[in-house]
């Protein structure tokens, strides 16, 4: 039996969308689009304070985008927290998994630090480092740590807001005393970028680990009370 929606309309629609996408992609690749952004960006990389082109686009040329992205991550986490508390978590791990996790988590944190530093001149950066921190948290959660190694809720709030806060504060200070919002003065760019990236790494790692828990963290075992 032929259902008209599933067997005729959807394939036709997909064909149309695919044709349109393919046509515009072919034109974009073969056509002469005039001056592209790539040569301009690549030419200015030496002035940006870091020598990895992707990091310099992300944290210098298009720092607005990155600030807004930290805000998106924060908004997603707030959405998750507003839906209720996290579940009861996993059972505590047996000794083999526990031992493996105890070995891997410090290694992950160490490689996150390396990834953050190396992002200035080689593949890496705040997002990759934050992902490594987040996966350390996921590993702890899987091994039965109820809060995935995250601090109590009051400190966790500061931690997840750190990326937006430091990035926006740097931008505002530069607007007051410098050339404009997130326009780094020559010579300071490297250190400003590193400051923002460090804060962002902590924030991204904490946000991803907290998002994995899927709800507001349970009351911390040691403090015992959270709002």
């Amino acid at each position: 039996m032929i259902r008209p929606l599933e067997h005729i309309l959807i394939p036709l629609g997909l064909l149309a969308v695919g044709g349109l996408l393919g046509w515009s992609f072919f034109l974009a690749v073969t056509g002469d689009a005039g001056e592209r952004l790539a040569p301009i960006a690549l030419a200015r990389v030496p002035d940006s304070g870091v020598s990895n082109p992707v990091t310099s686009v992300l944290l210098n040329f298009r720092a607005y985008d990155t600030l807004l992205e930290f805000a998106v991550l924060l908004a997603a986490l707030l959405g998750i927290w507003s839906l209720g508390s996290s579940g009861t978590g996993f059972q505590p791990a047996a000794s083999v998994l526990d031992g493996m996790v105890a070995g891997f988590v410090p290694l992950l944190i160490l490689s996150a630090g390396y990834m953050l530093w190396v992002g200035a001149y080689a593949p890496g950066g705040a997002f990759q480092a934050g992902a490594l921190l987040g996966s350390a948290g996921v590993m702890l959660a899987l091994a039965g740590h109820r809060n995935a190694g995250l601090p109590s809720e009051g400190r966790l709030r500061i931690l997840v807001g750190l990326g937006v806060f430091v990035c926006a504060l740097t931008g505002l200070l530069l607007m007051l005393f410098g050339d404009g919002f997130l326009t780094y003065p020559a010579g300071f760019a490297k250190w400003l970028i590193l400051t923002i990236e460090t804060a962002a790494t902590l924030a991204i790692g904490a946000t991803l680990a907290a998002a994995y828990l899927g709800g507001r963290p349970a009351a911390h075992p040691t403090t015992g009370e959270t709002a």
Partner: protein
Amino acid sequence: MTDQVLYAQLLYGGSGIILVLLGLWSFLVHAALLRKLIAINLMGAGVFHILVAIAYRGIDTPPDPVPHALVLTGIVVAVSATALALAFGKRLDQVDD
């Protein structure tokens, strides 16, 4: 731009378009939340793939960093959206029970 580069761009960009269509089809046809989520992620992966193909400039020329930065941003936004959608799904299940 040499033929080799154009060929690679068309091959990888074309496969990106196929990924978008595959994801769109799966999103429209399947009802389960998890399958819809996988479909959306697949569509996103297709879009990223197209952008990476556009940025490609050949095996020994540095690629365009601007689309790369966009894709890096997109990956993180996609995972946070997935986490939010899964939290919504979990809450919906609780309401249903």
